[in-house]
């Protein structure tokens, strides 16, 4: 299962195809890879389809938005081929359409890859792995973990603050100036409290003998096993396979240049 893959290796396996995909301007490559990612997601993890769709679908709209803008304002380099649609002052060429569709598919690939990582990775394990595999400083990783714990309290505090101000009759402030002032009123106590809490946690961590030095033992050893490399190989290898396939079929287009 993907949730048991070493998080650092997993991050690598997702980042490499993610970055390289950014260069693929054809439709075929991202489409095939997207299908592959979705298959991997559901075949090798316990993510429920409903939950995945709930998070994924808003991004579909966003991707369509990107594509729409791209289609209307295509740079001249891609604005080639026969005109497909024409209305009012707008002409949409075959080239523009392709670039737009490719952009949408690439965006969705990023989203699918990110979800594959986020939904199968435990934040604590990720930080432990960054420390043990990537030799990141414990100061940074434990800092992130401590901050992560605060997110829910922050929201709760904002709610209380809103209520407290409503009691004082502040809700009646209107207009842009009023809004800015309201923001200022919220931010001071929120910040004051956040700093106070951060200080307390820092003191508590140091009281437990935390010094931030790299030399420390690890209760949960994060190992990199063969399985992790198989996973890495599959994700990255498939990417190159897809690129090769699209090259053979004559679809490949890297950064606007047709490679045939």
């Amino acid at each position: 299962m993907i949730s048991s893959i070493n998080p650092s290796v997993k991050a690598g396996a997702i980042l490499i195809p993610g970055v390289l995909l950014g260069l693929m301007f054809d439709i075929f490559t991202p489409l095939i890879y997207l299908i592959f990612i979705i298959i991997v997601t559901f075949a090798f993890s316990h993510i429920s389809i409903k939950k995945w769709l709930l998070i994924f679908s808003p991004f579909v709209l966003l991707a369509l938005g990107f594509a729409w803008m791209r289609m209307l304002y295509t740079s001249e380099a891609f604005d080639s081929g026969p005109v497909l649609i024409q209305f009012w002052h707008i002409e949409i060429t075959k080239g523009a359409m392709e670039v737009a569709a490719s952009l949408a598919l690439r965006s969705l690939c990023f989203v699918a890859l990110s979800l594959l990582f986020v939904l199968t990775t435990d934040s604590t394990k990720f930080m432990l792995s960054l420390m043990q595999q990537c030799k990141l400083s414990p100061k940074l990783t434990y800092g992130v973990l401590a901050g992560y714990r605060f997110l829910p309290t922050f929201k709760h505090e904002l709610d209380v603050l809103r209520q407290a101000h409503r009691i004082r009759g502040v809700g009646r402030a209107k207009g842009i100036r009023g809004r800015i002032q309201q923001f200022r009123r919220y931010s001071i106590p929120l910040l004051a409290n956040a700093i106070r809490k951060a200080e307390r946690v820092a003191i508590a961590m140091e009281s437990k003998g935390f010094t931030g030095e790299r030399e420390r033992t690890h209760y949960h050893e994060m190992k990199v096993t063969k399985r992790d490399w198989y996973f890495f190989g599959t994700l990255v290898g498939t990417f190159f396979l897809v690129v090769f396939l699209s090259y053979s079929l004559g679809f490949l287009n890297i950064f606007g240049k047709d490679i045939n």
Partner: protein
Amino acid sequence: MNMIKQCNSSKLEPLIRVENLSFDYDNLKNPLISDISFSIDHGETVLLMGGSGSGKSTISLCLNGLYPDAVEGFSSGEIYFKGKQTTEFNKGELNQQIGVVFQDPESQFCMITVEDELAFTLENLKTPREEIGLRITKVLEEVGLSDYRNHKIHELSGGQKQKVALASALIQQPSLLILDEPTANLDPVSSIEFITLIRRLKEQHHIAVLIIEHQADDWLALINRVLVLGKNGDIIANGTSEQVFNDQRERLIQEGIFIPKVFMKAKKYITKSCEEISSSTKPCLTVKDLTFKRKGDVILNKVNLSLYEGEFVAITGENGAGKSTLLQLMSGILKPSQGKIEFLGQSFTKWKEQQLRKQMGFVFQNPEHQFITDTVFDEVAFGMTLNNYGEELTSQRTNDLLKHFQLSELKWRNPFSLSGGQKRRLSVATMLDETPDLLLFDEPTFGQDAQTTEELMFFIKHLQEQGTTIVFVTHDMDLVDTYCERVFVLNNQKIKFEGSPSELWEQTQTLKEARLRLPYRIRHQKKAGEPYDFVY
């Protein structure tokens, strides 16, 4: 000098010895902690007391070597741990010897699960992996949390969180344990459970304990010695509890320190000060069949209650019983899922927001949440300006209020820069631009020292005499016993008890279910001549 040298080599050297310690955040001209000397012996239990802001917590952080570095403060004097000066220890080394449990259960952990948090401490000490698991098992058994090893810390109750904090201090096997107001945020029964746990651990381990507390009552049985820190940052008392609380009582009261009730001769805790039930039958606020759900969970289920004009009422119950939610519903800032609330004979739905806020006040647990302006004066004047009182009237009424609450001299200060007690007084003052008909308080005396609490109660009593109905959400049964005419106990989404405090003290079962404790007065009467029962 010769004496000291001899002591160094012998076993007479105390565990920790502080010599002429001064500390301040800015400079040492007028230091927060001024030239103090004391020592703690191996296995000794010492109580450190002092008013709010007297620097108690600062001392504890100086002892384990985190201050002055962590805050870029200034200090002078020496601290010796087992005969060695604390500055000679490597970073982190001293922390292994001194475990600390802090006051706030929400902000002393950095990991998600109990196991990881405990492992974090041992990893810092470079404990070999194989040993970590065993030591976690052992310490969890000691504090009674074995079943919670893989639980997430933020899902635990306050009492359990403090036990986790204790476990992560004990797991380093320290020779000194510092408890910095560990029970300040706990409900009464959880707090007693924590103290009992410390007592049991003291019997098993030869460990010195330094307890920092406002209210010493429940700790007395454990304590060998009491240290009291004065307002000027010096130690004003050092001796056994009998010596300190009997011989120097007057001085301590002046300093705003809670004298344990065993040592109080004053009548107020032995006899009840107000038994007369308010004769008014005119309802101020009525709650009918009120149900409230949050994310599908029922928090309150068909609650009915009535408040009458000019009475002083307490709402109590264990942490998470929905007391604060009920108060928020009563103030109209939350909308009920079902049911109806009437204020002064008119349903909430018919009240205009502005008028409602004028006739009803609400004081939040954290006064800072309610501050909206930059000066104390503006803060009090804010409501009046909003209600168009006119400049002259506003300024006159504001000045009167500031004088009444002893804030006149702080008029142009920023509200956030006030002391805890001053902030609390200001937050009450801001609610009084007109004498309200109903004033709601959410845990107003939480974490306050004796002086602040007494001042606050004085002002509140005064308001009640003018006809304002007062509602307190509180855990403090002594407060309920002394001031309240009626009390409601919330438990399992419903009101389980309604009546006078003296009636409540008879309901042993209700008290037990709601995790409440009898007030001192009743415990004192019941147990006169009998050995002191620690829990009930």
